[in-house]
């Protein structure tokens, strides 16, 4: 099997055969502590172990051609993340998923995959919004407090930007929020290369403006539950249409 799939890069790429496979993956357990670069490296090595016919970047230091939708912060779990793999030849997405899952370390799992057009803009540029589940002690009360602040009052928090601390208003970046229980809060936020709200910054706003206990904030489990792209009609949709039985 391994040898059937392994492709000699020297064969070069034949443009008409290049296929982009978009994979939807989840992470939980130990891998949540990986930084984005670590996660990339882990995917690269897993793909090599799985001997998928991945294309390599050109230049000094050829790397498997992967592009991730949106970096995941250290400590974050995800149920719905995306990576595009450039393959040198057409390959059945389902068998690529099955094969890669055999070689990913525990805690990383590909859920589904599909072929996307090689002419599409990059995955990262498509991302518009993300949804997170925040599980922390007393988080919903804090959320109600900041939601109850006067409409014209900005939610100012400090963040590091290019080495400097800057103050930003995150209120416009929050699209939706609802609680499920006193300790479980869902938020939908702007995400992507244009405007992006990191959930840790939101937690900080809860601490500063909603009287959320800092220790509870540091202990809050964060799970990305959805990544969304524009559907072309002013709405949002998943980067991959979800097949029913897969």
């Amino acid at each position: 099997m391994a040898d059937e799939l392994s492709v000699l890069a020297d064969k070069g790429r034949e443009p008409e055969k290049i296929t982009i496979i978009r994979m939807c993956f989840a992470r939980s357990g130990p891998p949540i502590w990986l930084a984005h670069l670590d996660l990339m490296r882990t995917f690269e090595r897993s793909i090599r172990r799985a001997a998928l016919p991945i294309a390599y970047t050109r230049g000094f230091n050829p790397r498997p051609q992967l592009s991730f939708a949106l970096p995941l912060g250290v400590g974050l779990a995800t149920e719905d993340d995306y990576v595009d793999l450039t393959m040198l030849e057409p390959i059945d997405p389902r068998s690529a998923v099955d094969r890669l899952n055999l070689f990913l370390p525990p805690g990383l799992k590909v859920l589904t995959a599909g072929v996307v057009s090689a002419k599409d803009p990059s995955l990262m540029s498509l991302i518009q919004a993300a949804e997170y589940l925040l599980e922390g002690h007393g988080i919903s009360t804090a959320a109600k407090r900041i939601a109850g602040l006067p409409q014209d009052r900005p939610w100012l928090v400090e963040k590091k930007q290019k080495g400097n601390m800057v103050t930003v208003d995150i209120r416009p970046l929050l699209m939706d929020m609802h609680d499920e229980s006193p300790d479980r809060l869902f938020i939908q936020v702007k995400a992507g290369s244009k405007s992006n709200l990191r959930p840790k910054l939101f937690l900080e706003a809860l601490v500063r403006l909603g009287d959320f206990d800092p220790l509870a904030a540091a202990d809050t489990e964060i799970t990305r539950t959805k990544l969304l792209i524009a559907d072309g009609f002013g709405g949002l949709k998943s980067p991959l249409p979800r097949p029913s039985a897969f």
Partner: protein
Amino acid sequence: MAAVNVPRYVLQSVVKPARYVGGEWGSVHKDLSADNQVRTRFAFCFPDTYEVGMSNLALQILYDLLNKRQDTWCERCFMPWTDMAEQMRRLGLPLYSLESYTPLRAFDFVGFTLQYELAYTNVLSMLDLGGIPLLSADRKGDDPLVIAGGPVTYNIEPMADFFDLVIIGEGEEVLPELLDLYDANRSLASRNRREFLRLATRIEGVYVPAFYHVSYHPDGTVAAIQPSEPGLPARIRKRIIRDLDRVDFPLAGIVPSTEIIHDRIFLELFRGCPRGCRFCQAGMIYRPVREKSADLLIDQALAIERSTGYDELGLLSLSTSDYSELAKLTDGLLCNLAPRQISLSLPSLRLDSFSLELMEKASKTRKSGLTFAPEAGTQRLRDVINKNITEDDLLAAMRLAFLGGWKGAKLYFMLGLPTETMDDVEGIADLTRKIEALYNELPKSQRPRRLEMTVSTALFVPKPFTPFQWAAQATPQQLDERVRRLRTLLRSRSVKYQWHDTDTSRLEAILARGDRRLGPVILDAWRRGAQFDAWQEHFQMRIWLDALQAAGLDPDFYTVRERSEDEVFPWSHIDIGVSRPYLLSEYRRAQLAQTTPQCRDACSFCGAESFEGGICIGR
């Protein structure tokens, strides 16, 4: 014992939390239910950070070897960085293994691999964080057996108080026998630790420090080292693998998810070194040279690449240019690896046209840096240390390098070598100037546009089991003077000069040739806050000097004192095969600047022939 649960906010607050969670590809998890037969739990401990420890081949080899046993589960444990250690202490979290998060004290064996002396205080930190009594004498039946192996253990005397048992030689040979013995005498081991340790001394290569008594002369030198009971061997002989082709090598290692220092596949070409440089401890303790065959190495490289997914492969040995099948090996690797997008990273090779060509082939696009270790600045001093490299060799190599497009090289030297004078120090600058002149004489079209040389000097540390074990280390004053001289002489736009901190090398010298009286000093220094001594940002010589003084010991006794020819060394009861008379004759030859041929050219009957293996066979 329950698994340790590290609160999320702790991991959230420390640098590089991925170090503390495990779960990497290739890490081994075993089922502990009754029918699964795991009876012995072994914690493999590396007394430095995850990134350093995971780069160590011994860890990968022994992890693989131990986990192939059905009755044993070997897990890993590293020294947490100070931020994590602080949090663990604050919260009372014990140090735990990365596989099952089991507290260190719940293991049967806690085994340290010791690669450098400056990790000693970290051993104490790990034991302490793990809730294990620091002193061997204080441990009871249900405490783990705390053992050690690795190059530093050939003179483990300064750490003798802390280890129950020490392995002298190659772990692949000794550990299986030790684990068999433990499995057969499990209840004895917990009922009567001492009896079990006594039994273990029957295994060749096992050293139990507590069974040996050391007496001292009034001047502080060792008078005698004697077994404290009849029936113990007077000398402990190192164990080695005779045929490396026939011993397991991990074909599916652990692949870290987070970046480590040497993040690649390692192929071990051979153990030992034929050269016989007189300052080099590794060159003596690993004798004789034992090579693996090129065919086997190529097969193993391919298997490891498939199972790990690494895209870089490195060659490991003490002197790769001396590998007898180097051309066959590198040809085989290059033609198999290139199509699979794997790069071959080459260690520093002896520079000749073969190796330059090889470097061209290995790095298709980028020129990797060249490094050279002439070690000394004059031919006389190179003869003293038996470093078989001449000025002509070096200039010829640099010429080839310039013609091949290299901008320069990094040259490594040692300062404070035995018999060194200011002439030898100036020789380093002369040599560098000759390289500059060589560059300037080349027509512009044939040389790179700029010249970039780096000269790096480190302070010589005399090590046990080398011909220089008798020699004095240079004093800090002598060293400062020599470094200052070089700084003035090496002022040039195309030469960068780097020198190493002398205090680190002084401490290394104290610990390397130290005796058991240093045990309390290490403990005291650790209590005063010494840890991560190998890390510049943590190292504090003051602490060590205070601890030595408190114990009434003079650092100069260990560093700058030349030993008399008949001095009993603290490590005299350890037998590495290479004989003391041989080392002494080498020391004498050094003083006369007489060289000794390397093993391949002529055997000097150093004593390693007694292992009846490797390069000594067929002579």
